[in-house]
């Protein structure tokens, strides 16, 4: 319990509320009533990390298979307002419109590809979260593989060169000094010589 209390106290610097002299900071109050406060803050933290559910119940299709397809397509489409979320994640108005549009197209009998093409026709490559392979994005898609290939090729070349060097280069002749040391070492097992 003590340690818990101290951990709660560790949040004190985060409390920026005005501190009247002689009044304890709110964070210490958290420490004092720790069981309920800890449960409350844990619950709060848990709700904060839950994904924001952007898809409203009234948008959903009755048919679960269709709805699953709609969700799948929505995850491929970028929200053009917030730009780094899919329309499935985004609460933006336009994202909602597009989600509804996707569902309408599905109900009208479009395939997933046709729905994506429909939106792509209006908003271009930017709306697709997975960029298509074009001249401009070729480096994006192929770049890592090209680099890996290059690195592998370079390494192979280097290894081959090194092996050839080791095999073909004659060991350098020993100096007189080294010869003497070698002779001394080789004579090591003979009694009376060496250490």
């Amino acid at each position, binding site marked *: 319990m003590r340690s818990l209390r101290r951990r709660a106290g560790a949040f004190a610097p985060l409390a920026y509320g005005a501190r009247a002299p002689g009044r304890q900071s709110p964070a210490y109050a958290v420490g004092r009533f720790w069981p309920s406060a800890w449960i409350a803050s844990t619950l709060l933290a848990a709700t904060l990390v839950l994904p924001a559910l952007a898809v409203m119940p009234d948008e959903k299709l009755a048919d679960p298979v269709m709805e699953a397809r709609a969700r799948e397509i929505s995850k491929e489409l970028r929200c*053009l307002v917030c730009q780094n979320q899919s329309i499935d994640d985004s609460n933006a108005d336009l994202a909602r*419109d597009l989600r509804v549009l996707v569902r309408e197209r599905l109900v009208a009998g479009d395939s997933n590809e046709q729905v994506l093409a429909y939106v*792509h026709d209006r*908003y*271009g490559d930017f709306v697709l979260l997975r960029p298509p392979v074009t001249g401009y994005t070729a480096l994006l898609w192929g770049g890592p593989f090209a680099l890996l290939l290059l690195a592998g090729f*370079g390494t192979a070349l280097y290894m081959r060169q090194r092996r050839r060097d080791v095999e073909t280069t004659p060991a350098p002749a020993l100096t007189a000094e080294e010869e003497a040391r070698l002779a001394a070492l080789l004579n090591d097992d003979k009694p009376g010589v060496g250490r």
Partner: protein
Amino acid sequence: MSAVTRHRLLLLLPLAVFLILGGYFALGLTRDPSILPSMLIDKPAPVFALPGLSEGEKGLSKADLTGKVQLINVFASWCAPCRVEHPLLMRLANEQGVTIHAINYKDKPDAAKAFLAQMGNPYTSIGADKDGRVAIDFGVYGVPETYVIDRQGRVRYRHVGPLMPFDVDEKILPMIRELSK
């Protein structure tokens, strides 16, 4: 080429790779990511027919878009940047005689009318796009947006965000003059 020279050249390879990648990224930095190309450039405007702001009032449809060079402005009374650009649209219509059509995006007709009563009405015709569907056909992702339409009803230019005097002088007016020739 001797083996040694070849070996030395190989040492330059990382530098070459670096330069190529650096050039590619530098090129990427010069592109403004906020400029999203329109899919409609040089293509005919989408087919649409919008009702007017109130019952019996003339709306806006694709048929209105041919015959002369004109602008389509997507606006809403709740959109603050639309207020910013509005005086400029007034000047364009009154002083330059440019025909400007409007798509009133997801607005209440009364609010749109109050907006025009207060700020002036530069629009030749206004279509009420209550559910924003026509705007989606145009590829609109925020108001205001302005499109230059040529005589054949093709979209020639798209401006995202409020028009500023600079945009009008440097881009919109020269373009209208060029297309009207």
